[in-house]
């Protein structure tokens, strides 16, 4: 047994850490406290600009799609891919776009032409992607989706609606799940996947303001939108395969949440060391020590679970179950941390980043609000529990 990175991985981790330092020197503002991963915080103009620069630099480094085959600019290294993500996320660097994960789908299901067309711009850091799955009446029960895509002579005609499409206002492409066979005997058999240009005529975006105050996601209306046939990803009516694959590679979402939480935690620990109350640092208060240590233990346990997943992935083992465990766990730990931070900050916890007197950049206020999404997005904790329980053979629920 050995929990260490191998020499090559260690060297790569050092290279990434140097790169992060470079970003702090060249691009990030001096008091940059970090942002959450994902497109949400790019709704702020300053973060959007930083994200675009980082995305370009990652492309120039050849670090987008590190797990891909060499002919598409990758290094066929899953471990490098998670090492890079881990470092960027821990440091709260915006810019790693979900285009990289959508590229995984194109690699798996795309035609040769599609790979040549869609992958190089991703690996150069030139294009951004969004995902269109949910609909007003379709959440966890995603195979009941209704957005209609009718096959015509040289295109598919889209009519219907999506919702909760994060960041689609700022992307070049959206991977959209639509119904191509409304009469399929089983509803999951009539779904297909398309790569759609959100600027196509007939697409209307209506931003929705999140609880954090950010216009992060959109309702998307499709009115007679023509999507070229060559933008169909995978076989017609076999979108279930694509979605199952997409879920299986989302196994790392729990780690994304956890490495993001590590940054908040370290900032909170520093705050407790530096802040004196009644003549002694908060860090010397037995109750605070106990609660911070409890948090440190939970974060460490989550990292160990992540090590297990990374190792299993490298061994070619299925990681759907541990991925779901980690997703439940990571979101629970991060939500607990957000509350701990708010309690330690007390009245200051209310203040946002624009306010006078704010502490820790107002990040815990943001986290307390934004972390509600982490037990929902990418599969709710309840759906994850269903998946974990499945292989135990307990019998099917009604």
């Amino acid at each position, binding site marked *: 047994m050995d929990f*260490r990175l191998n020499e090559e991985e260690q060297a790569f981790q050092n290279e990434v850490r140097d790169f992060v330092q470079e970003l702090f020197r060249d691009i990030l503002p001096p008091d940059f406290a970090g942002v959450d991963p994902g497109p949400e915080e790019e709704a702020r103009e300053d973060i959007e600009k930083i994200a675009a620069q980082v995305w370009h630099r990652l492309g120039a480094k050849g670090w987008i799609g590190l797990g891909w085959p060499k002919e598409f600019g990758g290094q066929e290294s899953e471990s490098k891919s998670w090492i890079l993500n881990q470092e960027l996320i821990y440091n709260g660097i915006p810019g790693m776009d979900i285009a990289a994960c959508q590229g995984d789908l194109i690699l798996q299901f795309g035609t040769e032409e599609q790979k040549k067309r869609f992958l190089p711009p991703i690996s150069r850091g030139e294009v951004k992607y969004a995902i269109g799955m949910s609909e007003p009446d379709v959440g966890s029960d995603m195979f009941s989706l209704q957005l209609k895509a009718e096959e015509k002579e040289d295109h598919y005609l889209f009519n219907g609606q999506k919702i909760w499409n994060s960041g689609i206002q700022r992307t070049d492409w959206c991977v959209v799940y639509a119904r191509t066979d409304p009469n399929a005997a089983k509803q999951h058999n009539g779904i297909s996947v398309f790569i759609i240009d959100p600027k196509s005529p007939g697409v209307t975006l209506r931003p929705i303001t999140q609880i954090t105050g950010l216009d992060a996601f959109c309702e998307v209306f499709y009115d007679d939108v023509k999507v070229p046939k060559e933008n169909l990803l995978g076989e017609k009516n076999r979108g279930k395969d694509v979605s199952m694959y997409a879920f299986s590679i989302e196994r790392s979402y729990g780690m994304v949440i956890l490495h993001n939480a590590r940054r908040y935690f370290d900032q909170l620990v520093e705050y407790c060391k530096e802040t004196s109350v009644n003549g002694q640092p908060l860090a010397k208060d037995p109750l605070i020590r*106990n609660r911070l240590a409890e948090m440190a233990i939970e974060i460490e346990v989550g990292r160990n679970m992540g090590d297990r997943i990374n190792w299993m992935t490298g061994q070619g083992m299925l990681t759907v179950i541990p991925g779901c465990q980690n997703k439940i766990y990571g979101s629970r730990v991060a939500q607990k941390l957000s509350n701990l931070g708010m309690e330690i900050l007390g009245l200051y916890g209310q203040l946002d980043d624009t306010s006078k007197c704010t502490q820790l950049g107002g990040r815990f206020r943001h986290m307390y609000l934004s972390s509600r999404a982490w037990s929902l997005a990418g599969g709710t904790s309840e759906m994850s529990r269903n998946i974990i329980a499945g292989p135990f053979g*307990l019998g099917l629920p009604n």
Partner: protein
Amino acid sequence: MDLAFTEEQEMLWKSARDFLADKCLKTMVREMEKDEKGYSPELWKEMADLGWLGLPFPEKYEGGGMGLLDLVVLLEEMGRACLPGPFLSTVVLGGLPVMEWGSEEQKQDILPKICKGDVILTLAQAESSARYDAVSIQTSATPEGDDYVISGTKLFVPDANIADSIICVARTAQSSNPEKGITLFLIDGKSPGISTTVLSTIAGDKQCEVIFDKVKVPKGSVLGEVGQGWEMVKRILEWAALAKSAEMAGGNQQVLEMTINYAKERIQFGRPIGSFQIIQHYIADMSLDVDSARVTLYKAAWKLNEGLPCANEISVSKGWINDAYRRVATQACQIHGAIGFTKDHDLELYFRRAKAAEVLFGDSDFHREIVAQELGL
């Protein structure tokens, strides 16, 4: 990164599981709770013959020359089987300190006997404050000619009722720093002046009050250096916390499996209760507690085995599994309903052991304080 067992470890856990399934029946486990000695000498001999008692000790002392990670693999299976007896006391609390700090003479005297199953050892550390800290050590050892005279009362000493040798933690000098002036003595358990009373515990194990009443021990029985004992105690407590975590990880896994089986068999409303979503979600959460605790245990054991600094990892492991095992055991009781609340079912054995294990060698608050120190708080 490589998180797989070696071939030897695979063989070890498989043979341990088979052996214990055959020899450590729950009827025996229950009998041993009431038994005066609390262990089966025949089974002890068989474990010696299998090489388990000498597993971590060097071959030159007739041991197996294996590592602490291998020991953890074995302890997991013992926890799964609820194996009663002085394995942890003898091998971890007694044997490892002798291996680490004993003189050549002490090692040659004790270690081969441990390997052969001829002696039982234990550690007498805690006192009336029932805490694992230095300030609580009030038992005194006073030099007198070629001897030390030891007086004081130790509590919660595991298996002292059957111990041939006791490592006693005593104060040889007073100091403003309570961690200074502590010395370890390797004492014959049958020495005049030692009296032992078995306490009646929640898990039915044999934790004892041991009174040392002017016990004379030769100066040669000091283990390690005079006055340097507390650093050694901290190290022993790390080993013990890890070993206990391993037993707990095994029990945790067994409780999960028992509960899954029960949920499949128990019919209510015309269907197995396992088919109800709420039961499935309870079990999903239990599996998370079981799997997360195990990989965290291995991380700590691997670091210890490699000789890397691991105080933090061991406290993370014990601090986590204390709570995780309690959650799993209590949830299992809820899912089992009334049957889990009876002596007719095996679950109660684990439920009681989970609570006992939680407080032995550091409860969660104890380990959180260590983690807090590691954070620089």
